[in-house]
């Protein structure tokens, strides 16, 4: 009964949503004088950043990103709060069976490569696809691999939260520096340099690197916290 009702409801909802979006149409510009044209133009001319998405994420709509980072930070905090136990209640990590030696050796080999890839991705965020979020996620994957492979692998919690906090402070601090320098928050106050150089785009790569650190640390923190949870 409940299923039928839900299916009917979702069907109606789906119909209207689909109708709307089909009506909007796919694959052609829907509007004139949108902001995207300005973004595409200014990212090259003003910011000297080749990846427009990055310039939007970090500069045009950098405030969103700050919030986004905060959301992650909050999620980690919330996770800690929700799963908080008094010291004596904290359980051991539960592992169903230990990894084979192929996995352990492979992981050891792969881990530096993964970290390196992650770092590469977030350092080149303003030049190529990718950026802080992607890079941070890749780094966290590396830690996930290690945590899954080695039963007694542990991450220093203090370091994690230090990285997390410092990266966040750096992000906000850079924003404030921009405020002091140019009058608006997150202002790109460093000379943008030349397009397609690694050292270009002013503060954008710096911020994105910070974001990368932060995201990596936070995701690792999430994984670490949840793994230490005994059902």
């Amino acid at each position: 009964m409940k299923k039928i009702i839900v299916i009917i409801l979702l069907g109606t909802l789906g119909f209207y949503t689909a109708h709307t979006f089909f009506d909007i149409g796919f694959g052609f510009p829907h509007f004139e004088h949108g902001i995207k044209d300005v973004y595409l133009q200014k990212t090259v001319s003003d910011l000297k950043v080749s990846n427009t998405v990055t310039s939007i994420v970090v500069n045009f709509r950098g405030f969103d990103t700050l919030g986004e980072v905060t959301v992650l930070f909050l999620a980690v905090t919330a996770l800690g709060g929700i799963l908080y136990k008094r010291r004596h209640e904290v359980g051991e990590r539960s592992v169903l069976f230990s990894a084979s030696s192929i996995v352990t050796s492979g992981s050891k080999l792969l881990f530096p490569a993964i970290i390196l890839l992650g770092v590469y991705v977030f350092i080149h965020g303003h030049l190529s696809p990718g950026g802080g979020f992607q890079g941070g996620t890749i780094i966290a994957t590396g830690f996930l691999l290690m945590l899954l492979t080695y039963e007694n692998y542990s991450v220093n919690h203090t370091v994690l939260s230090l990285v997390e906090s410092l990266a966040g402070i750096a992000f906000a601090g850079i924003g404030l520096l921009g405020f002091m320098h140019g009058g608006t928050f997150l202002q790109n106050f460093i000379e943008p340099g030349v397009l397609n150089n690694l050292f270009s785009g002013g503060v954008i790569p710096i911020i994105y690197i910070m974001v990368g650190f932060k995201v990596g640390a936070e995701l690792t923190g999430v994984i670490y916290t949840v793994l230490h949870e005994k059902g």
Partner: protein
Amino acid sequence: MVGTPVLFIVIPLLAAFLIPLLGMLWKELVRIVPGLVLAYMLVLSVNLLNHVLIYGPIVEVIAGWRPPLGINLVFSAFSGFLVTLVVFMGLLIWVYSYRFKRNVDFEPAKKYFLLLMMLITGSVGIILTGDIFNMFVFIEITGISGYALTAFYTGRDSAEASFKYLMLGSIASTFLLLAIMIIYSQVGTLNMADIASKMHTIKPVYKIISFIFFITAIGIEAEIFPLNGWAPDAYTEAPGPVGAAFAGIVVKASVYAIVRYVYTIFDLSGAYDFLILIGLITLIMAETAAIRQERLKRMLAYSSIGQMGLVMVAFGMGTEEGVFAALFMILNHAIIKSLLFFSGSYLVYNSKHKYIKEVNGMSKYLPITSLLFALGAFAIVGLPPFAGFWSKLSMLTAAADSNMLFIIALVLIVSVVELVYYLRVVNRIYFFNKEEKTEPKKPTFNALIVMITLGALILVIGFYPDAITGILHKASADLMDKGQYIHDVLSLNK
């Protein structure tokens, strides 16, 4: 000028990132820093509000891109008033809970204050921002802080409440994103003022569907019926001050969002009537549910939902008087309902289930708290000479001026219901004998100060409403003037 609106967001964020580090230096700092931040925000908002009331709204751009491109924050009389209110309430909640958490371990305490601060920051962000996607981000910040705070006490059914909240919140964000995307696909911009100025170019059907998605998404946070299933649970299970924060802060911000959409962004004439309709339904359902509650906080929660319904009715009138009344009610509700939550949570402090019957005879043990609860109850049902009366009067006057006699009658009938359940509790506090063996807990010094402050405010506004009406008039005029808003934001050349 002591600062700009962006500091409302940045300072707390910086502090939030710093708190884990500071906690390593000196544990007490995790309690103190949020308070300092909130105090700073209050000073800032009061100063800015004074400035704004004289010189007109402040529009702050971020990253140096003028509005259609970058994100902007708008600190006008309307949003400024709400920010001041929110920050003020936040500071009081901090003071109230400062010692409240003494008996909690260091780790959770750290998280509690951090999350509380972020809850307030998120709400401030919702109110200040001039960009619909940015508003989504702030709604999520508020949401996640809210989920975590709801589930703060591990001993209770708090996780259940929090999960319900999260589930609905998650669905809300889905609809919010859909709505944003429909709008974006039509006008190619995310800036509120820009959207508002281009709204007439959108085909009506898109307008309506995106509005429906918006109202659903924000309605979940704003507790409109039938989207408010989470609210009573969350209010009940969250720590007392957090319940007050939901009632006094989060809901206010969400209502602000709805109002901003209805008044500024969309130009749907039916939206006003729709607000009245859902406001009334919410009011009736919530108040009638409240009368049969067995738990104190749950009753307060339903009452709070009902009050929000009333606020929505007032906003739905679409007149300046209506807005004035709605703002007045928001103010009063924030003050009074917080007082009720504060005092109420001490009345049932040590009981397990927080049943209403456990307040029996509390007046002998907690005289001041009981008195303040009674004051709050009298004020919230709108008895003169307390604060609630003036807002109710202005609301009804506005309704009468819009010729909505039926609504007046309905609202008044529901008020009688409200009166009944509040009186029942007050009667229990004063005229029943204590049965339960639970020890009443004396309020801490901080809590007493906060409650007395709120009580004094109720009396001050009750006896001298002019203290606040000037600001409210300016704020409501500000909201009504949509063209000015668009002009202020878009004409900014930087």
